[in-house]
């Protein structure tokens, strides 16, 4: 009884220590990077609010990587970029513009292939009843931009004006951001804005999905071909293996049935490894703006 009584505290102490260790580990796992969970950020580059697409993408990535996947969406590009540069997420599908401006902190994971090329255009669109013939006719109107961190939805048009020695806030009577390419099309279609800067890829896809919406607009100007919005990761990855698996899953998408389904919804052909030099054209525009001030 006594022997047992003296042995009992030790055993209890041992148990408590074991529980403490277990709890400590659990707490660690909960707070920091969850064990093996891939956090993948999405900007409203493509069709937003499509829960079915998000579900399928998550399902494919989980099966392909073997890791649980969390898809993270935010309202603005800036928020996603910030998560990426502060290394809170493994990777994110961002725009070429923030990729260029945060080049030193980011690495390129994969670039989507649209119509077999990692390229797309930026469109300036107007209402279908507009009589404007080129961008200079839009002076004094109301313009809808997509996002201040978007290449196609802001940078391209701004650079175009800068080449003419103009600034959007003076060229247009009014300009506002809709934080979504689809919203730009809606704003122009409804007449809220006279013109808008929109992702050419999104516009073409929308023309197939919602022809009655794009039907109320027309493309006034198409830009040169530019690098497609890429999937990027922090230069110092959160987890090398997880990132490698994610890249592998993205590149292998066309090979899998559910991967092809996701690509079909996105109207994309696949993902490819590309050199960062693909984004030099965008970088040139950033440089132009920096010089223009």
């Amino acid at each position, binding site marked *: 009884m006594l022997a047992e009584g003296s042995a009992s505290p030790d055993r209890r102490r041992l148990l408590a220590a074991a529980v403490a260790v277990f709890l400590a580990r659990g707490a660690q796992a909960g707070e920091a990077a969850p064990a093996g969970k891939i956090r993948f950020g999405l900007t409203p580059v493509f069709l937003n609010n499509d829960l079915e697409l998000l579900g399928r993408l998550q399902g494919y990535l989980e099966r392909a990587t073997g890791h649980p996947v969390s898809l993270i969406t935010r309202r603005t590009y800036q928020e996603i970029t910030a998560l990426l540069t502060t290394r809170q997420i493994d990777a994110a599908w961002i725009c070429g513009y923030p990729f260029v401006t945060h080049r030193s902190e980011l690495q390129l994971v994969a670039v989507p292939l649209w119509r077999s090329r990692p390229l797309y255009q930026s469109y300036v669109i107007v209402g279908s009843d507009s009589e404007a013939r080129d961008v200079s006719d839009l002076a004094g109107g109301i313009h809808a931009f997509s996002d201040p961190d978007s290449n196609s939805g802001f940078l391209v048009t701004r650079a175009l004006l800068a080449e003419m020695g103009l600034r959007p806030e003076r060229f247009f009577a009014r300009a506002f951001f809709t934080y979504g390419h689809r919203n730009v099309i809606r704003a122009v279609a409804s007449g809220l*804005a006279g013109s808008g800067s929109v992702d050419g890829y999104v516009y073409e896809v929308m023309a197939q999905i919602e022809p009655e919406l794009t039907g109320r607009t027309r493309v006034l100007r198409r830009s040169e071909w530019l690098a497609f919005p890429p999937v990027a990761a922090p230069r110092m990855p959160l987890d090398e293996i997880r990132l490698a698996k994610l890249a592998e899953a993205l590149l292998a998408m066309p090979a899998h049935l559910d991967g092809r389904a996701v690509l079909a919804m996105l109207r994309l052909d696949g993902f490819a490894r590309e050199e960062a030099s693909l984004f030099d054209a965008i970088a040139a525009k950033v440089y132009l703006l920096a010089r223009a001030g």
Partner: protein
Amino acid sequence: MLSRLDPRSWPITVKVPLAVASLMVLVGLILSERVLARLADTQERHLRDLAQSYLDGLSSAVAPSMLRDDTWEVFDAIERARDLHRSLRPLETVVSHADGRVIAASDPRRHPVGSSSEERQRVQVAGAESFSFEAGADTATAVRKLSYPGQTVGFIEAVFDTRHLAAERRGVMLALVATNGLLTLLLATAGWLLVARMMRPVTILTNHLGLARGVSAVPIAEDVVVRQRGEFGRLFRAYNALAASMDERETLVKKLAEEERLGSLGRLASALAHEINNPLGGLFNALATLRTHGHLAHVRANAIGLLERGLVGMRDVVRTTLAVYREEKRPRDLVASDLADLQLLIAPEARRKSVSVTLENALDGTLPLPSTPVRQAILNLLLNAVAASPEGAGVVLNASVSGGLFVASVRDRGPGLPEAAAQVLVGPMAVTPLRDGGGLGLWTTRRLVSELGGRIEVDHPGEGGTLLRLVIPLRSAQELSDVA
């Protein structure tokens, strides 16, 4: 035509259903007005509540964006609110700054961003918070002022489609009109049937009274009377009693007339007897002369001549009397010689009273008038005139035809016809014969002339006496006037 338009002249079977219909229309109008007013209240309250919830939702969605002047967010909020409140049917929504400049509108083409209209500023200055809906209108308007701690940030102005409410109101109105119209028609028909049924005894009575306007009242058939209960039953029995008494009276009157005829006959008979009696003495004298001196030829011839003249005179008197009082099997028309007969007939009575009767006969041939009643009527007047004339005076009978009228006038030099007697001739038919028995002849004359469709005129010429004139339309003229 005008009298038919006068409602007072309409039959009761029309008046009662019309009154019922008018009351129903009045009740229907009042009820419809109440129902529609209530409906408008309900619609407005319902719409106001929905509009409030729409504006509440939109206000909370756009207020922060308004502060940031975020056109897109405001526009997106308007679009989302429109999808959320489909049942309210928002037609147009405009979100503007406090100064009226548009931030975003559901139709940016009508209300471009940054534009400001005077109309909207006026609305916003006039009533910061308002809701206007008129029953039956196609749209309703609501304005909401947005304040952010104490300061006016802007306004939301929304226009809602209320055509479905107007349609509902029209539907209710149609249903009310149809229901009320049908009810009115039903009740008016029921009223008509009911009144027609209630008025049937009155119609029967009216028809019988219409028949009674002729000679005598026709009683209502006994089976009809038996079937009718209540006050109309009593009325029918009372009417039948009246008809019976009228019938009795009519019989009595006929009897009286007959008696009068016999009475005048009696008077004439006594005059006739007198007339025959006078020459009788002479005739007996002639007979005695014949018996005594018959062998003397000149005496005999003289006596026989005397006898013959006396007998011829008596024969004429008797023949005339027979002619006047013969029961004629077939009525014949009046001839000019009938008046000469009358003169003969009255002659004995006239002679007895030493009155001369003069005939001014302008008639010629046959007149289309029944002979007997005309002769009787003139004889009565002549008898009356002779009786009224003083000794030695003259009575003049004048007869003529002019303009389809037979006119016979009898003038005497008497003291003038008393007013009561004149009333018997020309007064209302209801006047009865004079109580003392006199005037029965006049009363009979009146009846005879009336039955022939004629009239009697009483005149008092300036030189004294009385002038009575019978005016009787000739039968052909009378028939023509009946046709007309």
